[in-house]
């Protein structure tokens, strides 16, 4: 096994660990932190199933963003939906045998890759051309867009211009499950693509990418509007009553 394969094997073990442990830590932290007051942004659903419906609309359609800014919504939605298709397409590298739905989604994954880059370019251009968005952007906001665009472009280039041995790539990742990494092709574009993806995984729990789990824990979106019917009280607030 080559040195490079070893490096990438360890990189991916590390990245997967950081991503899983980091996100788990944050999710547990969010779940354990009480929300002492009822603060849904109203009008809000009055039932649990209503909240599930509201949350689904937020996750799938970005409803609030749609109301807030059409340009950011269209670019943001194109990017996220593209990324979703791309992720589905890539699952074929990580499962054996490949499930039928994943086989069916393959061609759409390619369009997803293009859409993703288009959306990202749109979002990035707003950071330069809209003065308010320029004002609130810090270097990390630019870097994360650059990272995602680089991931998308390196992937598309491998698809359309500089092909790599995808069968070997798949054996490499399947091998990781049994701690038996198979040789990774030495194509520079592939190595770059994989390095950037690992970086994204490592950065995830330490950056604003936490918006993904964060949304599900947002009290203004996930609370049921029923404060008069049900008494809502946090453990630390309950202790005040016993004093």
């Amino acid at each position, binding site marked *: 096994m080559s040195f490079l394969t070893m490096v990438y094997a360890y990189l991916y073990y590390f990245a997967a660990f950081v991503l899983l442990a980091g996100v788990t830590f944050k999710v547990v932290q969010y779940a354990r932190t009480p929300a*002492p007051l009822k603060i849904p*942004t109203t009008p809000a659903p009055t039932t649990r199933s209503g909240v599930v419906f509201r949350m689904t609309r937020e996750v799938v359609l970005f409803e609030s963003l749609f109301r*807030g*800014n059409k340009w950011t919504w269209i670019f943001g939605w194109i990017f996220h939906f593209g990324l979703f298709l791309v992720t589905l397409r890539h699952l074929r590298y990580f499962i054996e045998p490949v499930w039928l739905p994943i086989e069916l989604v393959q061609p759409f994954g390619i369009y997803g890759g293009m859409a993703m880059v288009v959306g990202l370019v749109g979002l990035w251009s707003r950071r330069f051309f809209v003065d*308010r968005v320029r004002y609130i952007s810090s270097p990390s906001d630019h870097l994360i867009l650059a990272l995602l665009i680089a991931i998308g472009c390196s992937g598309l280039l491998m698809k359309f211009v500089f092909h790599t041995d995808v069968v070997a790539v798949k054996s490499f990742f399947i091998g990781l499950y049994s701690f038996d990494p198979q040789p990774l092709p030495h194509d520079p574009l592939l190595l770059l693509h994989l390095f950037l993806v690992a970086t994204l995984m490592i950065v995830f729990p*330490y950056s604003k990418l936490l918006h993904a789990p964060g949304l599900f824990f947002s*009290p*203004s979106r996930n609370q049921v509007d029923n404060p008069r*019917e049900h008494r809502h009280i946090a453990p630390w607030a309950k202790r005040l009553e016993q004093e």
Partner: protein
Amino acid sequence: MAKATFEVPELSQYLDVPPVTPQTMAHSLPFVAKPEIQAPLGFPGELVDDWQEKALDKMGELLGKYRSLRVYLDSCVKCGSCTDKCHYYLGTKDPKNMPVGRQDLMRKVYRRYFTLAGKLFPRLVGAEDFTKEVLDDWYSYYHQCSQCRRCSVFCPYGIDTAEISMAAREIMDSIGVGQKYCNEIIGKVYKIGNNLGLPGPALRDTLEGLEEDVLDDTGVAVRYPIDQVGAEILLVTPSADFFAEPHVDGLIGYGKVFHEAGVSWTLSSHASEAANFGMFIGSYENMRRVAQRIREAAIQLKVKRIVFGECGHAWRVAYSFLNTLAGPWDFLDPRYPVPQHICEFTYNLIQEGKLTFDKGENDDKVLTYHDSCNVARASRMGNTPGGQFEIPRAIIRATCNHFYDMDEDTIRDRTFCCGGGGGLLTDDLMELRVKGAKPRVEALNNVMQEKGVTHMAAICAICKSQFTKVLPYYGMEMDQIVSLHQLVSNAIVLTERDEEEDDEEDAEEAA
């Protein structure tokens, strides 16, 4: 037109988003609370020596107590959806008044001390040390947020800047940097029972005066009782209702509605204030202590129901928090929600056909309706979501012939704050209040031009006081803002009730 020492914004026909103009409001500072104001609330009198350490400790504590704060500080992706939504940004052009700009004042400190990325690469992620300059910015800009939640409507994660403003104010209070206006008022509530510091005898005088006025006006004896043990309903209303215009016309209206409903009711001198400024300063303990007065009054007066008068933030605390802060309410009549809004009460009577109106009495006015921010986005009325929009409008339609809504983008859950909410209704913030009112006044002005609207009804004491003061700066009349129950009061047809006297005697015997 009122005299201004600053430039009053020009109204335009369309809502235009101003270009980012940094530091235009950096000079805006409310008066700082003196030690004697801080003490009754349990806060240090002045900036403590090791303030930075203490503030960070407090921030850590709040991060563990409030999921909202933790999630909101982590989740923002700087998408910009909120940047043109805050009335203070639209009115002042100052980017630190964009919701995300305001949040970032705290987020940069959070990142520096509570996140790995901020500890290792502060410049990269926009993290900053908690310096005195940052603290000064906090004091200025966290007192330029009216906690109206408009930003949270448009945020893809529901990030509510109000939660962050409240936390910031609590942190500042904990190191001895309090705001005079809010903290002085909370002290008055503890000492006297209401925000305006009106003692019991003054309230009784005022209410007797109202009874005489209404008798003179209508020939019908409508009662305005206080501290009546055994009454069915405890009415908790903002203390401005006792004397300020147009608030008092609303109180007169509540009394007439209760009269027509034929239920006994009472105010309380112990809980003679609906507002709860504990929320503005983010202090759960103070908010709870203020809310407990209502529980005490309800028990002491042996009432069966609690109804709140017209007040925006008060209704938020009442509807959303009262059960949490001062419940459970199992000793009250379970057939009614606790608490109820006076609009719900009036609306139900209208539905049951128990009120008669002569709409012509309001024909001198063409109405529009201002959705008060905290009623619109932080509470509800009735049984269905959005009742807080429909019920007040239904009451206006039942009592007035001429009603037109303002532009859709500026009403219901997209309503603009009046510019004076969240503990900013103080003369030392006049420039902010006038500029912050711009988006609302603009929409009002448009509907005045297009539909001939003459008056705007509201159901919030802060909105009423704010517009009374601010409209003249824009060349409008201060009396263009009216109480919703003032319209009810004008149109309601009163009937004589003889049994009132007997009720009163019974109640007095019980006392």
